[in-house]
């Protein structure tokens, strides 16, 4: 034990004789180890992001969304009806057996008023399952119920922000909210907990902001507002004829998701002449994220492997030079009783010290991954916001997550590289003939 301590001490002393040389030797290992940690942290970040997206959408769901048709497809005069219909909704449920449940959703931009306070928001017509599927939590009161839906009740549930803005002091439950555009009143029956906006998924669904929503039974919306909606924005009117904005389908088993999505696309094939619907499969997005993650892993993994290899070769090179340079010392030590194993140990300890120094500093630098990336983004944003915005979304948003197990992994990798590339020079040192070594100038 003492021998090892002394050998380590000796190794440090010998390396300290050439501080700059030792430092440069360590650099390759440093970069390699740091990239191992970065690699794992960033891909974990990407994975987490993707998982969060999927969690907010559900891996067992398929989203069918109505989209505004491109203008050239619209008839020049009047308002063209587009998007998903209730008929199609019923047809999907009836014809596709793997569908466990489906919820129709209608969203309209509306003004909400209570007393003299008016805000802009989104009126969402939905069924009771909506809260479950979009993971909305009720803070007080209750969400829309089945009986309210089938009875066309004029009940409404407020998102947290809407409740705060319209009712800064009063208790909203039991109050009536006025919607000037449809001259309608709705009774508040529930308030939701605040919810973060869902992440954007690909190009087909922008991120959803749930903070300015008021939820009412979809049947009530149909009866009271209907499918034709005109909204006043500034001075002009906008009209649209649309039955459903979205159908969220839940599939009984995750393994059926892909097949079901295909069936849905087939079933809706005849509909889509206006190019006005999109089928989004969150599971596929998850797979896309996995591919991104894998590509990133391969890329960073290659950087890590190359720098570790180069670092290892650097260590070997320096150690070979050191062994030649210290031939005389080796001869002296052998003459004074060092066995071959002692010489091997001495030089292996030296390479291990080098690689451990590289490893530990690399790990420390690796741990700074998050702050460094944020700093880099901040600098890029300040220097050239244009370029920054053109970068892929992952680069703009990903938050690296340090994996605790990546620290020992990185440490052992650095140690292994040191030993692997240190063995040959150490063996060369040990094999020297002591007499010739002593004669060496």
């Amino acid at each position: 034990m003492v021998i090892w301590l002394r050998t380590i001490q000796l190794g440090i002393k010998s390396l300290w004789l050439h501080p700059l040389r030792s430092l440069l030797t360590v650099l390759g290992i440093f970069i390699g180890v740091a990239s191992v940690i970065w690699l794992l942290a960033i891909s974990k970040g990407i994975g987490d992001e993707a998982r969060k997206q999927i969690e907010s959408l559900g891996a067992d769901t398929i989203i069918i969304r109505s989209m505004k048709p491109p203008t050239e497809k619209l008839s020049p005069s009047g308002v063209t009806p587009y998007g998903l219909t209730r008929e199609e909704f019923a047809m999907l449920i009836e014809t596709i057996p793997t569908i466990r449940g489906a919820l129709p959703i209608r969203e309209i931009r509306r003004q909400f008023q209570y007393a003299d306070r008016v805000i802009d928001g989104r009126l969402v017509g939905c069924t009771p399952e909506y809260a479950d599927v979009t993971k909305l939590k009720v803070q007080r009161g209750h969400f829309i119920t089945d009986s309210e839906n089938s009875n066309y009740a004029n009940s409404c549930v407020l998102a947290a922000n809407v409740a705060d803005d319209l009712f800064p002091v009063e208790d909203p439950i039991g109050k009536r909210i006025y919607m000037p555009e449809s001259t309608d009143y709705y009774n508040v029956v529930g308030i939701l907990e605040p919810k973060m906006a869902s992440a954007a998924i690909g190009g087909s669904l922008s991120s959803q902001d749930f903070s300015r929503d008021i939820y009412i039974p979809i049947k009530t919306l149909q009866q009271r507002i209907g499918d034709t909606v005109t909204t006043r924005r500034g001075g002009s009117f906008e009209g649209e004829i649309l039955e459903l904005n979205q159908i969220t389908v839940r599939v009984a088993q995750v393994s059926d998701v892909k097949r079901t999505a295909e069936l849905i696309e087939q079933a809706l094939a005849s509909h889509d002449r206006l190019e006005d619907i999109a089928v989004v499969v969150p599971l596929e997005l998850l797979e896309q994220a996995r591919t991104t993650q894998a590509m990133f892993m391969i890329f960073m993994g290659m950087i890590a492997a190359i720098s570790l290899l180069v670092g290892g070769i650097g260590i070997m090179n320096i150690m070979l030079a050191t062994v030649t340079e210290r031939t005389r010392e080796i001869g002296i030590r052998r003459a004074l009783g060092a066995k071959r194993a002692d010489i091997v140990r001495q030089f292996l300890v030296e390479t291990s010290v080098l690689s451990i120094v590289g490893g530990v500093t690399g790990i420390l630098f690796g741990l700074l991954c998050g702050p460094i990336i944020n700093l880099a983004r901040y600098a890029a944003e300040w220097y050239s916001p244009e370029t920054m915005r053109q970068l892929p979304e992952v680069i703009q948003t990903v938050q690296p997550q340090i994996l605790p197990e990546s620290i020992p992994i990185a440490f052992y990798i650095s140690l292994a590289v040191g030993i692997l590339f240190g063995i040959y020079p150490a063996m060369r040192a040990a094999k020297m003939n002591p007499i010739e070594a002593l004669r060496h100038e």
Partner: protein
Amino acid sequence: MIKVNASTTQHACRIRDLKKEYVLKSETVRALRGVTFDVPAGDYVAIMGPSGSGKSTLLNMLGCLDQPSSGELFLGEDNVAQMTDDELADVRSRRIGFVFQSYNLIQQLTVVENIQVPLFYQGRLGPKEQARCLELAQMVGLKDRLSHRPTQLSGGQQQRVAIARSLVNDPYFILADEPTGNLDSRTTEEILQLFQRLNDEGRTIILVTHEDEVSKRAKRVVRLKDGLVQWDRTNTEEVRAQAAKYAIDNMPVEV
């Protein structure tokens, strides 16, 4: 005072018909062609002979750095000729003290650390060993230089560190290959006096030298020629005393 491990055997080493051949591509160099002599414990032997006569070769063999082609070589009771590399290393660290012409100290280490090296390879690093190193440093007159490095010392001082190092493992004998070859006459005298003192205390010393004045200080001179013992004689006390006196009388005055 340093206690001498009075060897259990009468002989520090016994050499029997020792031969060493170097087989080269074009020829075979017969460096030693059958050398036989004994070194009793407490002896002080000077090995002389022309260049290439095999002095260093013999000394390397005695120091277990090399193995004979044939013949026997006993250190104490052990026949060194049959040992493995590791066993030889072990004998070197326990039984042999080396002093070289070019001192051969390790540059990164301080004076005490250099003295300690042979013990290091025996795994003996305790406070007792530490104390012994200090004692030896004091004996060779380097008590106040303990943490100096070799480059900060003069040649004579370095050689004294080397002598202290050669004593640290309480060896069967001290082997010195031209220990004064790099030193001026004053420093040579210092080293020879140190050897004299060690021998008086009972240490066995075998040294190689080219200088008659040095060989006259030993108890015995073995002369090699062409890999064989040419002659082997004992210096009388008279010769030794005269040589010592001569050296002191002719010491250059310090400037």
